[in-house]
């Protein structure tokens, strides 16, 4: 069994690395920034080892029916408010720890190559370490306030890393957008915490989930919706999904780690962590399911038309997070975490592949790529594996978890589960189309010039000193190696769970082991269904075939197919005009013009005038009074004498 100190060390190791890089390496050894990367890798590798230990302890305790109990430490006691600090190690936490530290380790190794030569090299690794520490702190929190602290910390790290190249206006704007949009969701989360506090509930997560202080009726729904609002913001669910595609302005490894594998999954984690609260209210569960399923298909449609490879992946991430949220909403708790686990591997892999492609071509625009298959074989193979896993083709990892989600929706009760099933099924098809559109545009056909061509077409010419240039070659080993590791994960991570269930044991793993391990008591896990699996693979396969027909072979020429759908295409490339709605209408018109305008008028007319009036009054009073200040001491003394006489006289007349 893992001791408490070791659990804390998972958190403190990367935090220490952050402090060391930020306070020692960056100020004093900035001419040898490679040290920062090595320090980060060593610290995170240590965290990964301890996380594995935590996972092993959680497995042991699950089989032995023992709960791992750690003491709570008093942190804040103000009046009746009592906030404790502590760690939790349960199946959910340990899985999240392994995912976070594992993907983080791969990303750091990848970053050694990807970020080479960047002037902010040390800063990059420092913030990555801080992020890893915050993510670990988030998942081990045993108190909702403690959790909220780390919840915001990962948000801050996300902000800092999206805006890593802060001298690029787009990056700075994207960072701001991500921070503000997630803040809207966090507001709901904060209100939920305050509600619990004012309701007199204990703020320890275990106590909240025990359900004693939970309200009944509508209040329970609103409490769950408040927590879900936080998840919607963090996991970029509709209608707060707009920040994630823009967040792709950050460095690609950041997208792989934060905006694909871990931080965005924190929303799913949050719903899972407070799952008993959601179970309390059927309405809340339905809302979660519907939001998730709608987001899954909504984002997938936008992924169809994006030309930026990272934006395709971003919408894919939003869509896959929708799967997880929908799975939670229909009660498929273990399966949702299973999908999170698999998704972390293949989506991080896909982002790394995109980064690798960018390393060679200097651009993210797929219209200027093509033909990279021969030049970058490793990247090609790993990305195809990642895409197949994403689509959910047998026998890749994504197949197993996606299939279990569909199965739960199919067998679930009520109309909500049925709607979710059909939405998700269509999403499978869309996922297949956009994934292979991406593969074909990037790796097949002829090379179309990369960043040089892009700049020429934009009329910028090849600007001297541009950070990227076309260097068609396979990426360095530091970048390929983590991709290979993750590719292996994308193939086999489904099997560690043995979702097949046809035989009781597969390589010593029991049937549906993962789902049973993670799931909460009282939730059932569906058995594998061959027919549904075949159907979903066929749907995915049809999607791949259509993509092949449109983008690889001239059988379905793009122009001919595209003509009738031009309106829809326009709608999709404009992202359903939601950014226009948010930025153009709500922010510009609503907030800037109406709200800020009113405030400006109030400030310049009323506040300023009041301030000036106060100044005018004091100035004139001062001027009037200064007449009496003659500087004549005896004049003052006369006033004193007058005062004394008046007081004595008044006392004699009225005092008795």
């Amino acid at each position: 069994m893992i001791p408490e100190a070791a659990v804390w060390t998972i958190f403190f190791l990367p935090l220490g690395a952050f402090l060391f890089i930020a306070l020692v390496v960056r100020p004093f050894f900035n001419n040898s920034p490679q040290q920062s990367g090595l320090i980060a890798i060593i610290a995170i590798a240590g965290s990964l080892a301890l996380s594995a230990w935590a996972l092993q302890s959680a497995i042991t305790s699950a089989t032995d029916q023992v709960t791992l109990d750690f003491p709570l430490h008093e942190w804040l006691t103000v009046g009746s408010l009592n906030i404790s600090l502590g760690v939790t190690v349960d199946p959910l936490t340990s899985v999240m720890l392994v995912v976070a530290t594992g993907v983080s380790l791969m990303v750091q190794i990848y970053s050694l190559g990807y970020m080479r030569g960047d002037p902010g090299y040390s800063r990059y690794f420092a913030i990555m370490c801080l992020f890893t520490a915050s993510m670990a702190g988030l998942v081990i929190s045993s108190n909702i306030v403690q959790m909220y602290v780390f919840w915001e910390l990962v948000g801050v790290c996300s902000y800092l890393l999206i805006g890593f190249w802060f001298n690029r206006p787009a990056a700075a704007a994207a960072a701001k957008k991500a921070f503000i949009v997630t803040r809207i969701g966090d507001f709901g989360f904060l209100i939920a915490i305050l509600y619990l506090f004012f309701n007199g509930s204990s703020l320890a997560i275990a106590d909240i989930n025990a359900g004693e202080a939970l309200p009944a009726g509508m209040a329970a729904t609103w409490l769950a919706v408040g927590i879900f609002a936080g998840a919607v913001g963090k996991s970029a669910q509709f209608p707060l999904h707009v920040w994630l595609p823009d967040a792709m302005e950050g460095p690609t490894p950041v997208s792989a780690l934060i905006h694909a594998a871990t931080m965005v999954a924190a929303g799913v984690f949050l719903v899972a962590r407070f799952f008993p609260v959601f179970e309390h209210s059927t309405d809340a569960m339905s809302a979660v399911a519907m939001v998730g399923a709608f987001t899954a298909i909504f984002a997938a449609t936008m992924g169809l038309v994006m030309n930026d490879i990272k934006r395709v992946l971003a919408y894919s991430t939003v869509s896959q997070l929708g799967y997880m949220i929908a799975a939670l909403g229909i009660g498929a708790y273990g399966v949702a975490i299973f999908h999170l686990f698999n998704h972390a591997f293949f989506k991080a892999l896909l982002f790394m592949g995109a980064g690798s492609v960018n390393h060679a071509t200097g651009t993210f625009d797929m219209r200027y790529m093509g033909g990279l298959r021969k030049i970058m074989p490793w990247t090609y193979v790993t990305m195809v594996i990642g895409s197949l896993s994403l689509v959910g083709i047998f026998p890749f990892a994504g197949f197993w978890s996606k299939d279990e989600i569909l199965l739960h929706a199919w067998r679930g009760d009520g109309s909500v589960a049925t709607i979710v099933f059909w939405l998700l099924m269509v999403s499978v098809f869309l996922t297949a189309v956009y994934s292979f559109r991406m593969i074909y545009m990037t790796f097949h056909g002829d090379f179309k010039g990369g960043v040089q061509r892009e700049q020429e077409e934009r009329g910028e010419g090849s600007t001297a000193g541009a950070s990227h240039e076309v260097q068609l070659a396979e990426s360095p080993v530091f970048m390929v190696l983590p991709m290979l590791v993750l590719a292996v994960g994308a193939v086999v991570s489904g099997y560690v769970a043995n979702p097949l269930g046809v035989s009781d044991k597969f390589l010593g793993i029991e049937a549906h082991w993962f789902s049973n391990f993670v799931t909460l008591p009282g939730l059932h896990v569906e058995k594998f269904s061959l027919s549904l699996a075949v159907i979903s693979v066929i749907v995915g396969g049809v999607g791949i075939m259509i993509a092949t027909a449109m983008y690889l072979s001239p059988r379905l020429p793009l122009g001919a197919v595209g003509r009738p759908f031009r309106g829809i295409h326009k709608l999709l490339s404009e992202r359903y005009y939601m950014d226009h709605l948010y930025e153009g209408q709500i922010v510009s018109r609503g907030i800037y013009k109406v709200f800020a305008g009113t405030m400006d008028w109030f400030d310049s007319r009323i506040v300023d005038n009041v301030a000036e009036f106060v100044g005018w009054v004091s100035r004139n009073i001062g001027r009037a009074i200064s007449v009496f200040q003659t500087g004549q001491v005896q004049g003052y003394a006369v006033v004193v004498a007058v005062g004394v006489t008046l007081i004595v006289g008044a006392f004699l007349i009225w005092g008795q």
Partner: protein
Amino acid sequence: MAFQEVIFWVLAVSSVAAALGVVLLRDIFRAALLLVVVFLAVAGFFVMMNAEFLAVVQVLIYAGAIAILIIFAIMLTREVQQGNLPNRLQPAAVLFPVLLLAALVFVAVDTDWNLLQDQSRELQDNVEVVQTHTIGGIPDEMRGDIPGSDRSGLGELLINDFVLPFEIASMLLLAAIIGALVLVRER
């Protein structure tokens, strides 16, 4: 008219006249000399009220030290002859002291004081013993009859009941010495 009353009236008239002289005379040097007269008259009042110690202190400090200081200051400032002009505040400076005087006299006369002469014979006798022994306190053989006489005499009071003000007064004097030195130091 008793002898004491004769003394009182002589001292009262001379002190008031001298005080008027202090504030009204043009010649500031003579004013300072009249101030000495006031000080000595006040010392006389103290004697009449069984405050011999204070009378001695009055003569030493006021008539001695302070008067000498003032005369020194007058000589250093060389405005002896025409030095004591009135300023422009005459009306107020006359009116309000007069009003205040009226109020004070009214209070002094009108108030129903808890006078010693209205008390019991025994208390009057005991108080008389206390008042006639301001220096050195009451002799031991008489103490038994008088309650609270273990702290009699100014010295006993000063180092018991008033020890804190006593110490503060010493600090005040020290500060005054240093302050005066700083003020008049040649720069």
